């Protein structure tokens, strides 16, 4: 079989070689220069570039039409509203620039495609024009920078809320553990040297503040409309706590504690009734059905978003946003660290 392949391959090479010889001979007879760009080439390529522009824009709008409703649902956090508003403004701006400048580029390529008696305009510079297209981008950017920084400062400043929920997200290869502060509202201190089978997140067992801390894996509950302050740690390598539905993300870095705060505005149930989400899930469940998988319901998800090893792609946790009452019921059912450790 492989001999057959080799023979076929050799024949192909011989045939190509012969073909090339014929082309070379006929070219040398005609004395034509193949490489020379002729007016007919300019014409074909100029028109092709214009055609490409239409295809390109067509492809762009087709993608918008096809896939825009697969984007992340409208935000479910307070600061996310501002992020999304700024994002929308930015998208309008860049899509406008993208369309206009590409249009000029490809239209000029078509319009001024080379022709024999056409003479190019000797036009080396124009200070006014160049000033204009320095100032316009600069002012558009000034606007973006101002709003961006305003929001960034709000998002990253320390939490001032009195009534907040403090949660630690502890990352390790390849899962998440959430630690709730418990009744005293304080997270116990930690010591990585004390990590063991029964002390997976390295609680400092000498610190009594940690006794009532609550450790949860796989799925956690958080109350709606309350500020959630996340503190993040990692056991081994850098991970990233990515909560796309809340427009929240922060790396988890070994040796330090990083933070991110957000206030969820919609419960999981409310989100499941959102028309955008209903449509999104319809698509997802149709795709699942095709593959013979069970339909699912929408859930907020925490993902790892910094390369962390072989199972980086499979390191998540489900987050249920519920009413404060449901949250209190849920948390009261969880066992504090001390009880679990003594078992």
């Amino acid at each position, binding site marked *: 079989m492989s001999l057959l392949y080799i023979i076929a391959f050799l024949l192909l090479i011989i045939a190509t070689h012969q073909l090339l010889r014929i082309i070379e001979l006929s070219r040398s007879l005609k004395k034509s220069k193949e490489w020379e*760009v002729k007016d007919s080439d300019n014409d074909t390529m100029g028109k092709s570039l214009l055609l490409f522009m239409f295809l390109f824009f067509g492809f762009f709008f087709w993608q918008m039409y096809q896939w825009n409703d697969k984007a992340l649902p409208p935000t479910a956090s307070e600061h996310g509203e501002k992020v999304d508003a*700024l994002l929308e403004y930015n998208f309008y701006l860049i899509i406008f620039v*993208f369309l206009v400048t590409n249009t000029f580029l490809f239209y000029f390529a078509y319009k001024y495609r*080379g022709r024999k008696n056409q003479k190019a305009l000797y*036009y080396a510079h124009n200070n006014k024009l160049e000033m204009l*297209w320095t100032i316009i981008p600069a002012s558009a950017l000034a606007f973006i920078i101002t709003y961006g920084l305003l929001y960034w400062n709000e998002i990253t400043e320390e939490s001032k809320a009195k009534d907040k929920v403090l949660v630690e997200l502890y990352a390790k290869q390849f899962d998440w553990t959430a630690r709730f502060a418990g009744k005293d509202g304080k997270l116990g201190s930690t010591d990585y040297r004390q990590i063991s089978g029964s002390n997976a997140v390295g609680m400092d067992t000498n610190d009594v503040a940690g006794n009532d801390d609550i450790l949860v894996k796989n799925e956690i509950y958080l109350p709606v409309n309350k500020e959630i302050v996340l503190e993040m740690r990692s056991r081994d390598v850098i991970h990233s706590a990515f909560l796309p539905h809340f427009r929240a993300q922060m790396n988890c870095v070994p*040796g330090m504690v990083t933070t991110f705060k957000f206030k969820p505005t919609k419960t999981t149930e409310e989100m499941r009734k959102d028309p955008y989400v209903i449509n999104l899930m319809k698509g997802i469940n149709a795709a699942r059905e095709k593959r013979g998988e069970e339909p699912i319901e929408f859930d907020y998800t925490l993902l790892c978003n910094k390369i962390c090893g072989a199972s980086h792609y499979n390191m998540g946790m489900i987050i249920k946003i519920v009413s404060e009452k449901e949250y209190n019921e849920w948390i009261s059912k969880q066992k504090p660290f001390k009880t679990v450790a003594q078992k």
Partner: protein
Amino acid sequence: METNTIHTANTLHDEHVHTHAHHHHDDEHHESFITKYVFSQDHKTISRQFLITAMVMAVVAMVMSIVFRLQLAWPGEKFAFIEWVMGDKWGKDGILDPNAYLALVTIHGTIMVFFLLTGGLSGTFSNLLIPYQCGARDMASGFLNMLSYWFFFVSSVIMLVSLFIKDGAASAGWTIYPPLSALPEAIPGSKLGMTLWLVSMTLFVVSSLLGGLNYIVTVINLRTKGMKMTRLPLTIWAFLITAILGVLSFPVLVSCVVLLIMDRSFGTSFYLSDIYIGGRPLDNVGGSPILFEHLFWFLGHPEVYIVLLPALGITSEIISTMSRKPIFGYRAMIGSMLAIGFLSFIVWGHHMYVTGMNPFLGSVFVFTTLLIAIPSAVKAFNYITTLWKGNLQMSPAMLFSIGLVSSFITGGVTGIILADSTLDITYHDTYFVVAHFHIVMGLSAVFGMFAGVYHWFPKLFLRMMNKKLGYLHFWLTFLAAYGVFFPMHFLGTAGVPRRYYTNSAFPMFDDLADINVIITVSAIIGALAQLIFLFNFFYSMFRGEKAPQNPWGSNTLEWTNPVAHIHGNWPGPLPVVHRWPYDYSKPGAEKDFIPQTVPLAEGEADEGGHHH
């Protein structure tokens, strides 16, 4: 002239050498095969060595991308191709191993960024064009230049060798953030694979520094008579600024890498602290991975422009020549490149908004990063204005140059979103980023490199490339490239993180399979299109039509010497320059180009000199 001794370009400059120069090409056959083709100190040979080595590396990186794209489009599906490429161990039964997947994306990135678009792009065109377009006999130091190539070669070999070792190649991503890259327990690729990666990159930096210093010295000292800085072609300006960026930033990468080697092998704690792995706590305390990120990106961001600027220089030259029109805003183009070069050193933190770096520091970087959009916009507008009212000659090089302007804009605008720390929170490390940098940096630089190869092939190999195959190559590449990277924005807006072995672990990404299929099919078409280029390249190298002296009607000096590879570049005295390089279609001139060697007519103004 005695030939087997090595002349630096400086001695060749001396007048008494000129008097002998007219018969020195008779001596060329005295060079042995080894000194002419292997350990050559001639900039033209070194340029070709860089180009071909980089092409070999690029093919490896491209095949890798096809393997992981197959996995991403059809996870769990069995492909004989994957088994064939990856072997029994990493592609058992045609299914890609998750660790091997990470190794592939890591090495794909490393090769494309460093070996193709830094070593390959600068190595090929700075070497070819700096002596030619400045009017020099060769690089300032031919010997260091030769060393530069051989360090690059050894570094390439080590990188390739690392693909075949037992535990696999480095797999912590091309940015090799510790602790993942520091701890062999964390991932198999951080065993010997990472050591080889670090050794290879250190040698790479040596190569880059030797090359860069040479480029700078040559441009500053060896310009021929009349070649004022304001008469330099934009290619040379771009290579000069690129070399300066490299010389200033690459040493920081070495420090970054050396500290990592110390942490890995000698028990230091520069980047490590409070780690529990492999069932035990490590002793390292007090280090920080954030330090690594600062050091890495202090190189890493200028690196983006080290990749991009040569491509922009090349296309400036080609767009002007093939539009038969002066480049619009010559000085603004130089100013923009200088501004981009300067700003590129103070924007690195935009890679680190959500790493735990102080948010206030983040806001400073938002400001500087968005500033860089201004000179970039000026460049894009100036390109477009150069096309306006031109007489565009659509060679394959011109098409790729127009392609570059398009990808530079299309990829550039999404940078405005990512530069904004507030918006980066959602898009950081998603496919939106992958789309952005592949289009603005990857495609632009690759298009610039293709444009350069088509345009200067006559100077590289004294023959012409086939135009029709060039057209076919351009169109397939251009269409496929946008087919690969445009849809990735939509994966990003859906929140898909990068470097995921498969998206099937999270139901929220279940409906995105179609997008991944479109991307992979485009990638396969794009990869096959490169076979056309490879065929055209090697075929034309041996059997292409003989090049005429000045096929594109160019003004620059490299087209004034005979169609031959002469040691010393010009058979007689060096050409003398009288004007800037962009006198295309100047009113009153007989032809639509006036080479730089033509003296100014009486009362004629030189755009490259002072004006207004």
